[in-house]
């Protein structure tokens, strides 16, 4: 059975706006995600400032040279992902792929550097709150870097499906936003862990 039902708006309402929901939702999620880091950072600062002896016996402190190289790598990858996005906006799909791949390479190098650093350390996850917070923070951040590289791989594969990226792609925007986010978190983390050594 059907009834005559007035349709004051003959034009469909939600069609154009619909595509943008994904990005909105993702931004909201990122805001929420940043609070976990805020919690970890403030926990770290609190434990560190209130500790009697922060460094476990036999540990002098952290080497900063290698993490610094890693920082440079990660920060420049924020630049390359920006260039990738710009290329995409101009419709230059191969330029996009090139810079995107470069970003993925830089991200993977960062993970490699992190692994090398971890394997050379003389303390573990259970070496007091110093070891605990160090591995918690770098590990949780590293997990985000790995997720970012995974997302980029996905977007790269998707770019080879014909017609997919004609008018820009929200997944690309979201991934790049996520990557900048991971980058900013790293800078804070670097300052908190490697620069702020004396308590």
């Amino acid at each position, binding site marked *: 059975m059907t*009834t005559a039902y*007035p*349709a004051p*708006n*003959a034009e469909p309402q939600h069609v154009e706006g619909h595509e943008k929901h994904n990005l909105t939702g993702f931004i*909201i999620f990122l805001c*929420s995600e940043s*609070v976990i880091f805020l919690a970890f950072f403030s*926990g770290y600062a609190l434990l560190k400032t209130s500790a009697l002896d922060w460094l476990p016996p036999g540990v002098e402190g952290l080497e900063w040279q290698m993490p610094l190289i890693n920082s440079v790598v990660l920060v420049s990858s924020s630049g390359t992902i920006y260039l990738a996005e710009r290329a995409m906006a101009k419709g230059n799909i191969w330029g996009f792929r090139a810079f995107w791949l470069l970003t993925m390479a830089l991200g993977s190098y960062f993970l490699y550097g992190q692994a090398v650093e971890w394997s050379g350390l003389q303390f573990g996850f259970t070496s007091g709150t110093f070891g605990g917070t160090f591995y918690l923070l770098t590990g949780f951040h590293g997990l985000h870097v790995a997720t970012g590289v995974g997302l980029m791989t996905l977007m790269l594969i998707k770019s080879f499906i014909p017609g997919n990226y004609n008018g820009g792609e929200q997944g690309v925007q979201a991934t790049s936003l996520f990557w900048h986010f991971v980058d900013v978190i790293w800078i804070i983390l670097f300052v908190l862990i490697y620069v702020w050594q004396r308590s």
Partner: protein
Amino acid sequence: MTLATFPASEPKPSWTRYFSFNTDAKVIGIQYIVLAFFFFLIGGLLAMIIRGELITPEADLVDRTVYNGIYTMHGTVMLFLFIFPVLNGLNNLLIPTMIGAPDMAFPRLNAVAFWLVPIFGVLLMSSFFVPGGPAYSGWWSYPPVSIQNPLGHLISGQGLWLTAVALSGVSSIMGAVNFVTTIIRMRAPGMGWFRMPVFCWTALAAQSLQLIGLPSLTGGAIMLLMDLVAGTTFYDPAGGGDPVLYQHFFWFYSHPAVYVIILPVFGIFSELFPVYARKPLFGYVYVALASFIIVGLGLIVWVHHMFPSGVAEWMRNLFMFTTMLIAVPTGVKVFAWLGTLWRGKLRLTTPMLFCLGGLFNFVFAGITGIMLATVPIDLHVSNTYFVVGHFHYVIYGAAVMGIFAGIYHWFPKFIGRMPYEGLGKLHFLLTFVGANLNFLPMHPLGLMGMPRRVSSYDPEFAFWNVLASLGAFLLGVSIIPFLLNMVSSWVRGPKATHNPWNAIGLEWLLPSPPAEDNFGEHVPVVISRPYGYGLGKPLVEHQAEIEQALALAEQQEAAR
């Protein structure tokens, strides 16, 4: 204006959709609510055991350690498996229909968020059957108790508890992202922020709190899990850790969590009082905005739960002050409701009775809340039954009663049938008397010094405890007329029209029950503020025609 043909009621969908991975927000809403009440019965059963134990001073009904597990599970089940799911159910039903959206912004995510609930529910329940029994460190799960694993099994009640709470967090974040995106991006044409119903304002405020607060608990719980299973010492002073740090993480979320619970209930009050007093909501803009002032303040009061935990003096004073400030926006709302009721033509239907009872209890809880915010009083009564009495007045007296009000009020819309008034009023009477008889005696008990979380007590406390237990059993009985009412009116209650309460709102311009995509593509254009009772202004363009069409469809349906 164009006339479109539009199916008034589609072929009746099968009931099996309630047991499937369905992406329609209205189906998910009902799934949430029914599942939540299943767990309400479990949590209630545990409460009956608690009160049965406490009817005599001796520990005679259950073993002491079992008692610890029972109150821990009672609190956990009631919060994570009853109250959050039932509110998410209401959000699912109401947000899309109230703002004229066809569904949520991310329907599949919505379904995933729902199906996580039975999964972690089963996980939590299974902890009754592992060696050592369920978690027993209270719903706060404070270290050091919560990082001890005396039996040394990998799977412990505490570990299952943490996993379940983590999954609950994932589900809540998925839900929150969805609700916020939907409200921000999918409102009907013409529905600016200050034409949005207050329920949506409060839902938006509550879900923002979830997004900001919950990650703190997640972070804290990850560290707790590491302490429990991986041997770290974040909260263990022996390894340089600090147990109070966990308390900060926990309460940074769990204080806002009480606003996640009560804000939507404020929304329900704000929706229902105008309907049943036949007057516009007094001070609509202030009521709407006060929700966000509560969000801001609610995030900076958490230390009031830690006054006895050895925090600095300046912190105590600061947080006492911020806590008292919250009374201001809350008071704005209370006075707005009273102003709405003032000289209204009150219709004392079941939903209205639940609202009035809930408001009464809420005001009482507000007074004891201000008392608790005062540091010297709190130091005296912290961890006594005074606190248990206070928060049950908020949570049962105000929130659960408000939720019942909402269920009776919107039942006809989403089920398409009317609940029975007689059973409803009986349910109200038993609930109101039972709740007050149960929770009022807890205040004198607390002032006299009876600690919470104990299964035996001095005989001098016996009198008030007997009263409280009688009230609890009355509450236990009160659920019977409710369940009877829901089941029988769902099966064979009188058919509901599209607007049985004569209410104003987009959801009441849909057939009862609405079609799967609500308004579909014919979303009405909103032209005035909500709650225009007695003002004679239409809410949407072509309102008269829409209502005529709905009435016509109902007549045809009845004639068949």
